[in-house]
């Protein structure tokens, strides 16, 4: 009864009598079950996520942890000036954007393709084995993973040996993969895919459980090929999840990670490997300049918000599912 009433009032046609704030509270009262289920978490959200934002003031101070808030020296935009004024900032920003874009595109495409292909495997045992094994590298820390990557790419590593065997590279002229700056983004992209491809498919595999099997049956009757079924049934079936994940990840475009670049980076490829996080580490955290890292964080947040709302808006325009 009550739910019916809610449905009735919430429909646009029902908005006859009360207006504005009054209407809002009337609705709220009717939806009290939903309020009870969600508002306590809003309080949680406020305390744990919004209260610490006062820390952003640190970006405008010559911050000394020992001093009370009102005893800090305010220095305005000095830290931002340092960040944006550095001649390397453009390069660092370029690297960040390039690597996170590579990560975004490769990460999405490979995970979705793998999920689609896994979905086509009929032997359940084999499918599960592939799934389980492909997600193993996710559990290897970057420190260990980087060391394996470095060994693989070294002049006497397996990759060079294979290239020699294939006659692409001459012995004695092995390629110094990590020493060629232009290769770095590729190495980074490939490493990230290798490490997380299996892990990233999980959510799509879960999404595929929502697809009604009768659709496949119908397609089979129509004689649709495997590729067509993937294209016209599976893919649309998981599209809402893809879109939502895509929007969320576009917001992270300035987060290109830190560990792989730090661990695989070296003096020879620094022009392509150094991103914002490493820059901040060098000049902020390593010099215990908390303010600089907060300033960089604020910059990233602003960019994230812009990207997030833009992506959401585009999705809305395109009639796709959206974040909010």
């Amino acid at each position, binding site marked *: 009864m009550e739910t019916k009433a809610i449905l009735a009032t919430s429909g646009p046609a029902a908005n006859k009598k009360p207006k504005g704030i009054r209407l809002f509270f009337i609705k709220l009262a009717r939806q009290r079950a939903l309020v009870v289920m969600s508002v306590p978490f809003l309080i949680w959200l406020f305390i744990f996520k919004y209260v610490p934002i006062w820390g952003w003031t640190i970006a405008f101070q010559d911050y000394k942890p020992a001093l009370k808030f009102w005893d800090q020296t305010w220095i305005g935009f000095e830290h931002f000036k340092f960040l944006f004024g550095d001649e390397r900032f453009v390069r660092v920003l370029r690297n960040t954007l390039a690597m996170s874009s590579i990560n975004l595109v490769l990460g999405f495409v490979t995970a979705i393709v793998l999920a689609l292909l896994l979905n086509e495997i009929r032997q359940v045992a084999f499918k599960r084995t592939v799934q*389980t094994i492909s997600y193993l590298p996710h559990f290897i820390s970057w420190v260990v993973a980087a060391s394996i990557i470095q060994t693989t790419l070294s002049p006497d590593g397996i990759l060079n040996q294979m290239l020699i065997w294939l006659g692409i590279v001459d012995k004695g002229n092995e390629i110094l993969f990590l020493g060629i700056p232009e290769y770095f983004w590729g190495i980074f992209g490939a490493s990230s895919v290798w490490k997380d491809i299996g892990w990233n498919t999980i959510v799509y595999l879960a999404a595929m459980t929502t697809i009604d*099997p009768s659709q496949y049956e119908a397609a089979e009757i129509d004689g649709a090929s495997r590729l067509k079924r993937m294209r016209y049934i599976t893919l649309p079936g998981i599209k809402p999840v893809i879109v939502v994940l895509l929007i969320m990840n576009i917001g992270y475009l300035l987060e290109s990670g830190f560990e792989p670049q730090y661990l695989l980076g070296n003096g020879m490829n620094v022009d392509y490997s150094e991103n914002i996080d490493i820059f901040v580490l060098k000049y902020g955290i390593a010099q215990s300049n908390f303010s600089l890292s907060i300033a960089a964080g604020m910059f990233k947040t602003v960019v994230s918000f812009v990207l997030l709302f833009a992506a959401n808006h585009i999705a809305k325009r395109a009639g796709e599912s959206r974040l*909010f």
Partner: protein
Amino acid sequence: MENNAATSRTMRKAKSRIKASAGDRIFDYCNYTFMILLIIVTLYPFINILAVSLNNAQDSIKGGIFLLPRVWTLDNYRYIFRESTIFHATLISILRTVIGTVTTVFCSAMVAYTLSRQDYVLRKFMTIAFVLTMYFNGGLIPNYLLIRDLHLLGSFWVYVWPGLIGVFNLIIIRSFIENLPESILESGRIDGAGDFRSFFHIVLPLTLPVLATVALFSGVYQWNSWFDVFLYNSSHINLSTLQYELQKILQNSNTTSGTSSLDGMINGASGAQQNTVTPLSVRATMTIVASLPIIMVYPFLQKYFVKGMMVGGVKG
């Protein structure tokens, strides 16, 4: 009706077997080849790490270990399990993984349900309020002071409270609920079920695959976390976790391999039987020790990823 469907399915299967076109066969071959390549590429690092962890530490220094250990030993594992703190820490790790995961999945799902309701008046406001928090952070010190002021320092609950809701998980669950056929949710409402009942009896069972996914995400996160232990509970050994203890052992091995030069000097002529560990071997061993338990969880969750399961659930 069920019967009908079954018979027609077998008929169709027979048909399609004949029709299993050359194209589909080629597809299968390619697909299987690709999967086997993928297995090789993703299994190799693990085999490699396992081999290093089972190889004599002094010998591993020389490099060149790929698939099999050269000088077999269990010393690396002994070195790690020699620390008696490991066992209690594992217990805490399990506790925080179980409690943290259950609470976050439940709470996230509940909020997700409310946010999936198109008519909920706070929907838009709350969605944005939650989503935005994914993209900012007040910084280390304010967070630390908050935890202190909430009296969560030196408490087990510091592993649970800050992660009570994972916004990423929340959004994924929400988008699954929105994807459920409207008819099912509505049928619940027409039955006169309130929101609580509809959440517990319809939404929760129907979203099991995504809940399993999210549980995996947060379980792995909980299991792997050590930064919060470092920050908040580092001087409370009884709240230490497996990952944190392993970090300690790793750092310890850094200095141990340093002192071994000392031992090497003093031991001199006789010190041939040094069982020194190296960071290289400890890292490999701790990767295995830390990841095996959580990796084993996945196969158990896989049964929730059966195709058509959600819809099947509706029918049944």
